[in-house]
Each structure stands twice: as structure tokens, then as C-alpha cells.
């Protein structure tokens, strides 16, 4: 595993380079019914509220509603910019997802057109690896100040796989 390990100086360099970094979606994300259905099906969630607009409306939603973890599809696109940032040079084989939180200010539904901005909020050393906390805000494309979903993800860089 020697070849995969970040050296302490790599981690030190990242610890200095990461704080305050921010990234955003370059294109608006259009939430499509078919994508919501595809994602729901991929996790085995076949309840019609996630597939059928008529049922979703009957349940009080504007249209087919996203399953709670769907926002990761969008925030992951932005996190990938961070992980691929040429100024950072992060070894992807040593990145572990530490924790994840979603806060929905309203449900995400088909027809939403979203922007997403992600920033690094905290970096600390954590037993030979770096714990990088990120915040992502999903907002209507026309209104960057109004969050629809707030997502927090922490990544462990340089971590050993936890078995």
C-alpha cells in the first residue's frame, strides 16, 4: 500500500490549500422526471410517488419527487471538480466518504432548474489523514440566495480503507 499513501508533506500541503476553496456547477441542472425515476429505480424504490406525477400531486408534491439522497447526483458533480482540481492533486484512491447530511428546505421535484455551489468549510487532521468538510447549496438557478437543499459532506483524504 506504500505507493498509495499520501506522505505527511502531501497532507500538509493539502491542509493549507483546501480551506476556503469553492466550486460551482458550470451548467444549470435540470431535474427531469426520467432521471428521478432512473435514480429511484436504481435504489429499488418503486413507490409511485417517485415515479408517477399524478400520485405525487395527490401526495402534495408539485411533480414527481426526488428520493432524499438524489441531491448527491448534483453535489457529486461539483465535488468532482474539487477532487480533480489541478492545484490540489488529490489521490482519489485515498479518498473515503466520511459522512453525509441533507437538509431539504422544500422537496426537490421534476422541473426544478438548479445551480449548486460547494465550498470547503473546515479542514483538520484526523489520525494521519485529513478530514475535509464541505457545504453545498442547491438553489433555483434564478435565485442563488434561496437554498432548496443544503448538503454537508465530509471526505477523509489519505485514510486507510475502514474494514
Amino acid at each position, binding site marked *: 500500500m506504500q505507493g498509495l499513501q499520501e506522505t505527511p508533506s502531501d497532507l500538509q500541503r493539502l491542509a493549507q490549500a483546501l480551506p476556503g476553496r469553492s466550486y460551482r456547477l458550470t451548467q444549470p441542472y435540470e431535474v427531469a422526471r426520467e432521471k428521478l425515476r432512473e435514480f429511484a429505480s436504481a435504489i429499488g424504490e418503486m413507490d409511485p410517488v417517485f415515479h408517477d406525477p399524478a400520485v405525487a400531486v395527490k401526495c*402534495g*408534491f*408539485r411533480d414527481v419527487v426526488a428520493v432524499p439522497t438524489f441531491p448527491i447526483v448534483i453535489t*457529486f458533480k461539483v465535488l468532482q471538480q474539487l477532487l480533480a482540481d489541478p492545484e490540489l492533486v488529490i489521490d482519489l484512491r485515498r479518498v473515503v*466518504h*466520511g459522512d453525509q447530511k441533507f437538509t431539504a428546505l422544500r422537496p426537490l421535484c421534476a422541473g*426544478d432548474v438548479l445551480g449548486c455551489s460547494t465550498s470547503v468549510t473546515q479542514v483538520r487532521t484526523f489520525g494521519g489523514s485529513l478530514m475535509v468538510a464541505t457545504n453545498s447549496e442547491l438553489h433555483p438557478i434564478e435565485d442563488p440566495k434561496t437554498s432548496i437543499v443544503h448538503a454537508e459532506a465530509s471526505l477523509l483524504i489519505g485514510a486507510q480503507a*475502514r*474494514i
Partner: protein
Amino acid sequence: MSNEIPGVCHGLLPGQQLPEQTFVVTRADLVRYAGAAGDFNPIHYSERIARAAGLPGVVAHGMFTMALGARAVHAWVDAAVTVLEYNVRFAKPVIVPDDETGVRVMVSGTVKSVAEDGSTLIMLTVTSNDQKVLSQARATVRQNNDRIHHG
């Protein structure tokens, strides 16, 4: 019934135990999830790369396991519910064997509290092969108000 008091989820009461939900995860599920999520980290489909990363074998996406937790929550409440908050810590990977049987992920829950507006906090226990794979897993849900459209 749940319409009498806006916000109350299916009459869930504090302390109530929610019936265990079992999900089976196979390699095919991981491939399908990778495509839907756009997460093509090879530790989720290549034994060789998973082992090189120090894992005992191919592991499920943490986000897939988290999604199964949300499926359990959805099974405990009704469809007219919004998950306001959902968070987990990825404690251990779910190891998925290369066979048709796959691995089982079990999710059970306890109602921790019900707020005045009906927001209901559910604590989740998510295990696979007798190990906790998610820790500090909790979801807050609230019944949609019939009179307004959400989203």
C-alpha cells in the same frame, strides 16, 4: 387519520420501534447505481482495485447504503411525507460478493421524538453481516400539508 393533526406522520409515537426492513444488494445493483449516480469509483465494481485499496473486496457505494436507509424510512411512513433532514456517518463498508445471492442490509428504526409541528425524528440502525455499516443515522420527516403543494 393523519390529516386530523397536520404534520403528524402516520401516528408515529416517541419510543415506537419500527419494523426491520431487509434489502439485498448484488454486484448488479452497484453497477446500476453507479450509472444512475454518476459515481464510477472502481472500488464499487473491480475486485482488483478494491483489494489494491486495502478493502476485502468490492464494496457498495456509501450513498447506496444511505439510500437504503431512506427506503426504510419511506416504508415506515406514508407517501405524503417530506424528509426534511437525513444524515449518516459511513462506519463500515458493505462488502458485496460476486454471486447471485448478494449481501443483506438490515435497517431498523426508533421514533426518537415528535415535535409540535409533527416533525418526527427517527433514529436508524443499519447493519450488514452483523456490523453497523452506518452510524449516527437519523432522519426527520414531516407529513405534507394537504392544502399546499410542496416543491
